[in-house]
């Protein structure tokens, strides 16, 4: 079956190349016409065609709150585990961002320097930031920058202005929040003295 048979929009390739990298397409993203791509996928006619087309290559388009992403059909457990491992560091990051005086929420615009300053002034935040395991961490500012880089790469943030180093939180950020909200913490009752606590991802 050919791509033409599905009568796909011309942006298909662009959409695929973005989402196949594990990126999200958010409605409030502006770089590379992300919002236009969102509109294209969000069009009900297109969506069904995309779904049918991508299912053939074992991808499924998942719809979030104002964002889309790919999930792989029949993913192996080891792949899932890897994903979870990658996700783990986001727990601390989201915790940090949610603990700021001016909470970072979807649509928020901020500069890494602002976060670094606030962390510098607040011991609790500083500890939270220092707890996040990243490589380049000579200064708090650099660490925040690294976080922003990471989140931009994973399409949770978007750098709006390179001059002022201003970032915007994209709709996909709610994916992180949703996943974290569905994490249940259990405590072992201590019948057997193995691990005393742990995480369950719902």
């Amino acid at each position, binding site marked *: 079956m050919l791509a033409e048979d599905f009568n796909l929009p011309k942006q298909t390739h662009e959409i695929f190349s973005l989402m196949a990298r594990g990126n999200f397409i958010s*409605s*409030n993203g*502006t770089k590379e016409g992300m*919002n236009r791509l969102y509109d294209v996928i969000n069009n009900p006619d297109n969506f069904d065609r995309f779904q049918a087309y991508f299912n053939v290559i074992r991808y499924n388009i998942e719809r979030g709150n*104002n964002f889309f992403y790919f999930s792989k059909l029949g993913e192996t457990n080891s792949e899932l585990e890897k994903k979870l491992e990658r996700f783990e560091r986001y727990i601390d990051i989201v915790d940090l961002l949610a603990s700021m*005086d*001016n*909470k*970072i*929420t*979807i*649509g*928020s*615009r*901020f*500069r890494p320097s*602002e976060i670094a300053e606030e962390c510098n002034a607040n011991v609790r935040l500083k500890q939270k930031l220092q707890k996040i395991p990243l490589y380049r961490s000579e200064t708090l500012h650099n660490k925040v920058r690294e976080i922003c880089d990471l989140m931009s790469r994973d399409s949770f943030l978007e750098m*709006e*202005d390179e001059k002022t180093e*201003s970032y*915007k*939180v*994209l709709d996909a950020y709610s994916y992180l929040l949703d996943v974290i909200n569905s994490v249940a913490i259990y405590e072992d009752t201590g019948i057997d003295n193995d691990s005393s606590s742990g995480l369950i991802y719902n």
Partner: protein
Amino acid sequence: MENNCRILNRIVEINISNVKYADIELSGNTCFVGTNNFGKTSLQRAILFFYSANSRGLGISASQKPFEEHYFRYENSYLIYEISTEDKSFFVIVYRHNKIVFRFVDAPFDPDFFFTANDEAMKIKEIVAGLEKKGIYISNQIDTFERYRNIIFGTETDKQLSKFHLLKGNEKYQNIPKSITNVFLSSKSSVDSRFIKDFIANSLTTENSSIKLEQVERQLRQFNEKYSDIETYLKKESVQLIELIDKKYDQVHMLKGSQIEMADKLGSSLRFAENQNESMRDASKLKEVELEKLEADFKQSKDNIENKQNDIREEIGYYDRTIRESNKKLKEYSEKNIEEALVKNQEREKLTVEMNIARREYESLTSNVSSIELKYTSLIEQLRNDKSAYVNKINSRTSEIFNHYNELQLLQKNEFNKSDVELKKKREESLIEINSEETAKQIEFNQMKSEEKIIRSTRFYEQEIKNIENELAELRAVSYKNKSERAIKHNMAQTIQREWENIEIKLKTALTNRVNQTNIEIIKLKTEIKEIEQKLDIQNDAFYGFLEKNVKNWHQNIGKVVNEKLLFRTDISPKLKKETIDTLYGISLNLEPVEIVSKSIEEYQFDKNERLAQIRDLEESLTQFQTANSEEKMLAADKYGKSLGEMKEDAKVLSYSLELSDKREQKLVAELEDWNSKAGKEIEDSLSSNRQRLNIIEEELSIFNKKKNNLINDFNKQFDKLKNYNEDRLKDLKIKQETEISEIEVEKKNQVKEYEIKEGKLSKEKDSNFKKKGVDSKQIKIIEDKMKEIKSLLKDIEQYSQIISDYLKDKREIFDKLPDMIQKKEEFIKSNNDLSVQLEEVTAKYNLKRMELNKQKRAFDEELINFNNGINFYTNNFRETPVYSKYSDIIERAEAKRTNYNILDLCTQLLKNDSHFNEEYGTFQRYVNEFTGKFRIDNHFNFIIRNDASLGEYERFAQNLRSFINENKIELSIAETATQIGLVTDSIANKVNELSGQKDKIQHIITLIAEDFKKAEFDESKLIEFIKIRLEESDNKVYKLLKRIQEFRQENGLVYNEGLFNTDFATGQKREISGKAVKLLEQLRNAIKEQEQEEIRLQDLFELKFNIKEGMNETGWTHKIDSIGSTGTDILVKAIIYITLLHVFIKESSHRSSKDFKVHCIIDEVGQISSHYLRELLRFAKNRNIMMINGLPNKSGLESHYKYTYQFRREENNNVRIFPSIVTEVEA
């Protein structure tokens, strides 16, 4: 001087740059020889400046000094251009007077004009003075380059100056300096069609006749950004977010308002508590003292009254007893028939008199028989005495018994009475005891009852309730007013909305009508244009073409009589027959007076252009109308939107205030209910304790009653028992008495009978004796009986004497005083009752006052406790919280004022509300962030919020958003954007039209060039066989898109912008068209970005291709000829092309009458060209009246081909000297 033609003959430099003086002749081919940086190019530029007079178009790079500064360093720096003419020469002085200026001098150049005797260059004033002195005409200062060029290129109208021309140019003369400049500036070695294109285009266009893509891109970006902003705004999610923000803002605002209100109350309460604490404490103490005093006063009054009551009660007791005893005695007397006794006692005197009379009568009758009488009387008397003695004895015995029994009875009675009295006393005592207790209880009961009455009539928390009721009344009044105001505002808003809508409809209709009208007119004009074009297209093959080709001046004859339709028919096969020439089918006509009806091609062209201009005018007028319409729309939106917004805002404020009022009312009603229930509870509490006490007292009273009844019963029983015993005893004694007395009486009777018998016997004896003696015994007997009867009666009366005597004594002493005593007793009872009432009143008053004081004291105490608790809570639990920090200003600045709330409640509520507020505020923030995040950071709505924005900023954002919605600014934005898309496409279409309008000129020039190439005589050398040139369509992507937009604009007019964001199904087609327009603009924007081109110039409208054959090499049709042969060949070809171009442009741009002039072609660096080629080139130029000025790095023999050769040398003082080289011109 050459052939008496006009030419730039000489250039003289005086103090120019580092040349002190140089005089260079230019009337033939000239070459400058000198190593680099010696000033060859500077000199060439100075020559170029003569032609171009544009200090900025000389190829001076930005890093170099500007022309003015580099050339004219000194006050006496001059550039002099001498121009030779047909008769004599004139020269132009160029100098700097702030800016570069020119003067024309009508004389050949002479160095003496400029130098003093000391070879010092003079100042311009001196030069002018010197020339004037010599009578040589020198023009005024020419201040502008434009005017200078007009003079040089012969278009100056001033007669004095018009003679100073090099050539007579036409309206396109600007192409000549441009061409000369372009040739000079092009230094590429390869021949690129782009360069030629540029050359041609630059020669044809001005700087402004390009489409500046940066400007277009900016317009597109602005439109695109606005469009995308609006699109984002109109998205469902955004609309939902707006609603959420609006709603949440109200909630947050309300919460904040209530928090502030509460903080203010807290502050007021705190200040009040702090201020009132001490005075409250004092007030409480004062109330306590007042209470004590009240109690003491009451006790004293009560004691007084009770003492008085006791005295009165004693009096009453005394009178009561006395009256009772009197009544008892009266009863006893009555029982003893005192009335009868009194009557009988009244007859006593009468009976005593009767007795005495009877006795004297008896004594008189018996005086004759006194002895017998005496005997018998003594016997009878004896008997009688015996009898009497006996009777007396018996009587005494009887009376003894009687008395004995009477005594016993009396004793018994006394005993009874004593017991009775004792018992009664005992009963009385017990009763008094019980009664006093009962009375006390009763009094207490009555007190309780009156207290209950007081409690029931007391309104607890009256002030608070009254305050709330007042506040409620005020609130309701305000709410009522607000409701009516809101209704008015709603009505006004609706009216404004309707007015607005009417105006919008009116404007829309006007626009639609205008658009339709304009479109109809445009269609009509286009149809006419089409018809004209059709005519022009077919004219060659039609009768018209035939006439043009074969009949001279046919317009003067055939043109006057022929039908226009016939002229453009292609099917009538016209043939020229000489016989009938000047006739109409053989008929000769005088057509002098007849008007020509046929039109020339130019006239058709003119008609077409006129119509095109009309279309443009129509479109322009439509655009203006649309702009005006949009402006009117904006004005209406501004006017009505603002008013509407204000009305809506007012209505919203009123709604909000009503909402607040409702909440406040509900709260107040709840508070009122609370206070009422509190008051009720207070009453109930007071009443319940009262009732309990009352119940107890009632119970006690009933117990007392019972006790009293029991006591009375007991005593009654005892009384009965005593009475019965007494009665029994008395009865028994009576019986015994009667029995003994009757026994004695029987005995006495018997004895008396015996005595009476004896007496009878004696009486009979006496009577018989009397009879015997003659005495009337019968009469005596009657008197005796009478005396007996009287005696008996007297005796009877005597029996009552004692009781009567007692009665009379009692009557005198007691009974007669009884009414007075009753009266007195009544008076005492009344007094007692009065005192009781007084006591009751005093007690009630006391109770009331006591309760009042207690209440006041309790209130003070409670308030004090509340204050202290509140202040403690505030200090310990509130002061350190962030809520305090948030509202500290309000709390600290509040005025001391009593509120209906206590501090503790206020603190708790503030803390509680704050967490709710934070929650709501967080959500509000989230919505605002999400909403703004949907827009670009620099969106034209200014929907932007900083990450660290304060609550105030978020609130202002929401307020602005609300105003935005109320004032319907999105409509304005849409209208603006719609106008913008119209303007953008219109501007693009106009620019494309303007630019592509010159395409014909290009075509014309290219044709001329091609022809000139053909004419070129390369035969001699056979070096270049041919140079061909042709035009092709442009493959510039941006231009293609621009063209498409222009076509789109032409096709759809201006109507499509109406459909922008129009969701109306009826105008759906317009939306589709608008969609296409937006897409096209977007494509253009992307293309501009991709292509990174600054502007679309005339040269981008077409492609130019060359085909050159040199020897055996043919390049084929190509854009760029990198290498035709050797470098020299390349330079040659390039120079040939330039010269051709220059020739063509000069020819095109100069007046046909002006032929005797020569211009220079300045090409630097021709050192690599071979001598043979150079000769060929110079000849090629010469044939076209063009003199070459070239630069050579050093002497190589090439200079021999030039008429003038100048060498450059740098001297020790760094000055450059230019001097002529002595060479022989081989060929020029």
